C-alpha cells in the first residue's frame, strides 16, 4: 500500500459496498454470535430490533474484508504507476466503535476510511502508525457504524540501498 510518508491526514477512500443477505447474516451468527436476533427471523421479529440483524462483529469483519481488498487495489495502482508499494502491518487495537443503527437483512453498506492522524514509531524504525476514522452508511445514507482504528505501515523504502 501507500508508504507511511505519503499518507496524509484528511485522505479519504471509499473501501467498497457490501449487501448483508439473511443467509450471510445467519452463517456468520451460527459460527460466532448465535443470539436469536442474528439467527432466527421469527425470534428477531419479537426482539427490540423487530427483524433479523447482522452481528456487530459481522459488520466489523466486512469492514476488514473491504479494507484488505482496497489495499490490494491500491498496491496494483501504485505498481501500474511505477511506484513502490510497502507492507502494511497489524493493528494494535481500536476505540469508540459504535453500532449506531441495526444492519437488517438486505441492507447495503458503503464503508469509508478517513485518515485522522499519524506518527513515526520510535520503538520500530522503518514503521509508522496511522489512525483512521472508519464509517459505514446504509442505502438510505444513514450512518450505521463507526470506529477509530489504527494500523502500522512501513515507511518509504530508499532506492539508494
Amino acid at each position, binding site marked *: 500500500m501507500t508508504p507511511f510518508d505519503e499518507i496524509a491526514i484528511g485522505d479519504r477512500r471509499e473501501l467498497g459496498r457490501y449487501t448483508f443477505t439473511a443467509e450471510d447474516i445467519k452463517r456468520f451468527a451460527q*459460527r*460466532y*454470535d*448465535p*443470539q436469536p*436476533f442474528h439467527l432466527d427471523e421469527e425470534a428477531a421479529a*419479537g*426482539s*427490540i*430490533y423487530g427483524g433479523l440483524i447482522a*452481528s*456487530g*462483529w459481522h459488520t*466489523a*469483519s*466486512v469492514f*476488514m*474484508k473491504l479494507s*484488505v481488498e482496497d489495499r490490494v487495489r491500491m498496491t496494483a495502482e501504485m505498481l501500474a504507476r511505477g511506484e513502490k508499494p510497502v*507492507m*502494511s*502491518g*497489524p*493493528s*494494535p*487495537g*481500536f*476505540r*469508540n*466503535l*459504535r*453500532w*449506531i443503527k441495526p444492519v437488517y437483512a438486505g441492507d447495503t453498506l458503503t464503508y469509508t476510511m478517513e485518515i485522522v492522524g499519524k506518527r513515526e514509531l520510535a520503538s*520500530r524504525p522503518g*514503521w509508522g502508525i496511522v489512525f483512521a476514522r472508519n464509517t459505514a452508511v446504509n442505502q438510505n445514507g444513514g450512518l450505521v457504524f463507526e*470506529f477509530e482504528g489504527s494500523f*502500522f505501515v512501513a515507511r518509504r523504502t530508499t532506492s539508494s540501498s
Partner: protein
Amino acid sequence: MPRICFEDLEEGTVDTFGPRAITREEIIAYASEYDPQPMHLDEEAARHTMLGGLAASGWHTCSFLMRMMYDGYLKDSSAAGSPGVEETRWLKPVRPGTQLTLRRSILDKRVSRSRPGFGVVRFRWELLDEAGVTLTEVTCPILFGLREGGGQ
C-alpha cells in the same frame, strides 16, 4: 424468563470461561473470508511480517471471544445487543493451538433511562493464554433486560 438477567450480573465480580483452543484451520478460514493478509493465512509468509508467524486476525479474535461469551453466559440470558465497544487492545498475537481463557470483569451497571425495562452492564473481557498472559482486552457495554418489569 432467562436464567441470567440484569439483576444477576454483579458489579466488581470476575469470572472465567473456557479454555477453548483456537485452531489453525479456523484462523485460516476466517482470514480467507474477512482478513486475507499473509500474517493470518500462511505460516511461511507470516514469518516475514511484524507478527513473526501465523496469528489470528484481531477481528477473528473478537468474534471468537463473542462466541465464548455466548456459550459462557449470554446463551440463557436477557442480553439484547450492544451500542458499541469502548476500546479493544490487540496486545499480543493469538497463535494457532492456544488454549484461550475468557476472563470477564463487570465494571459497572445502570438501569437504562432511554429504554424502559433494560439496563446496561459494562464489561472488560480478556483473552488469556495458557500462562495467564492477556492477549486481547475488550471494554464493552451490553444491554440486558430486567427480571422485574423487563424487556425481552
